[in-house]
């Protein structure tokens, strides 16, 4: 037998029966659709549960992280405040108040400083030194002044990592401190060192009593700088070198300045130039 195409067609068509029941097929399809929907809902439910649990976990982790940051940001000022308190003994008003923002250190009466201890730093971390109970003062040889007795030498001869600005009242009462660290600290020193300002011809009462405690990048404490105020000008000295800069240079760091009252005709001993 060698089948032709017609024979093949006939053979294939032989035995055709009735078709399937449409209602049965519809019932099967509806069941299948329901089953798929249930399966899809289960999967979506599982995915949703995973997302919710993950979200809650992330939320908790973030909340803990924020709390930790707040705790870290709040502890440093308190610690510094405690140091300040211990340094000045029982003197003066509260300096420990801090809103925990900005990383500032010290009293509540002085606004925070950007780039404080919790700010970014490219230098090795070092603990800011404690402020002395009274401001550092130097008796400049021969009355001091620009270009006299080595006054033009560098205020700080090493790269600095931290500058602690200790603030005092006119009666030498400790008020608080500010810490400037990282690149901002070095920039401040560079700015002051580069100043060619001469002492102002008009003098005022020295109502600005501040001390800057520099810490080198290697962690060593450097010679403290005494900061005193004249009219809109600040004198910064390490006992030998001296610089005069506009008071805004310091004030923008500490955030506020002690009031300076001009007193014409009064001078601190140095001849006007």
């Amino acid at each position: 037998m060698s089948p032709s195409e017609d024979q093949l067609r006939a053979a294939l068509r032989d035995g055709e029966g009735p078709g399937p029941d449409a209602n049965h097929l519809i019932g099967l399809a509806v069941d299948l659709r329901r089953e798929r929907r249930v399966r899809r809902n289960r999967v979506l439910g599982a995915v949703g549960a995973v997302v919710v649990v993950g979200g809650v976990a992330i939320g908790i982790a973030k909340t803990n992280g924020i709390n930790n940051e707040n705790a870290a940001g709040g502890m440093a000022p308190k610690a510094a405040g405690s140091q300040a308190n211990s340094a000045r003994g029982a003197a003066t008003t509260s300096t420990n108040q801090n809103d925990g923002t900005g990383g500032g250190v010290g009293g509540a009466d002085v606004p925070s400083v950007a780039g404080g201890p919790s700010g970014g730093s490219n230098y090795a971390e070092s603990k800011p030194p404690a402020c002395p109970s009274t401001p550092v003062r130097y008796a400049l040889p021969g009355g001091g002044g620009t270009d006299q007795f080595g006054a033009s030498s560098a205020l700080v001869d090493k790269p600095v990592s931290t500058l602690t600005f200790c603030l005092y009242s006119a009666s030498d009462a400790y008020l608080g401190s500010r810490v400037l660290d990282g690149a901002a600290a070095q920039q401040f020193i560079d700015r002051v060192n580069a100043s060619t300002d001469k002492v102002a011809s008009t003098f005022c009462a020295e109502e600005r009593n501040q001390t800057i405690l520099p810490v080198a990048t290697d962690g060593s404490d450097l010679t403290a700088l005494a900061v005193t105020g004249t009219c809109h000008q600040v004198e910064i000295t390490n006992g030998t070198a001296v610089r005069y800069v506009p008071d805004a240079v310091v004030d923008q760091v500490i955030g506020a300045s002690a009031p300076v009252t001009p007193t014409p005709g009064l001078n601190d001993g140095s001849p006007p130039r």
Partner: protein
Amino acid sequence: MADDAAFRAFVETNGAVLQHAARLLTGDHHRGEDLVQTALTRLYLKWDRVDAPLAYARKAMVTAHIDSTRRKWWGERPTEVLPEVAGSNEMSEIDERDELRRLLGGLAPRERAVVVLRYYCDLSEQETAHTLGMPVGTVKSTCSRALARLRVEAGVVG
């Protein structure tokens, strides 16, 4: 559902042909019923989105059949003795038609699909190629090879 009536009409019109094609594809009465049921259920679920229901049903059927033969737990195992074709026992006499259908069961699934689509469903080579998702040339060569094999087998039997 609004389209149930249209689906019922489609099944009444084409169900018998599809079911018989499924039997020919599987070589088994019950597996053929299962196959057409699977294909038509899929068609129902996509009824609103299908433009050519008959072509879709054929393609679903052939795809499901070829797919099932790929699975070892479901596929056919080669044997020297061809299985009995359901319904053939009802015939007291084995004639040429029965013989051809028995020989059809010895073809590979894809060859069988080509023969069924071409000679039972009367599809053109292009339509067969589209349904099977293969080039027209492959359909031609597969069909030619299947017919040659059927002739050889029929000659040996005859």
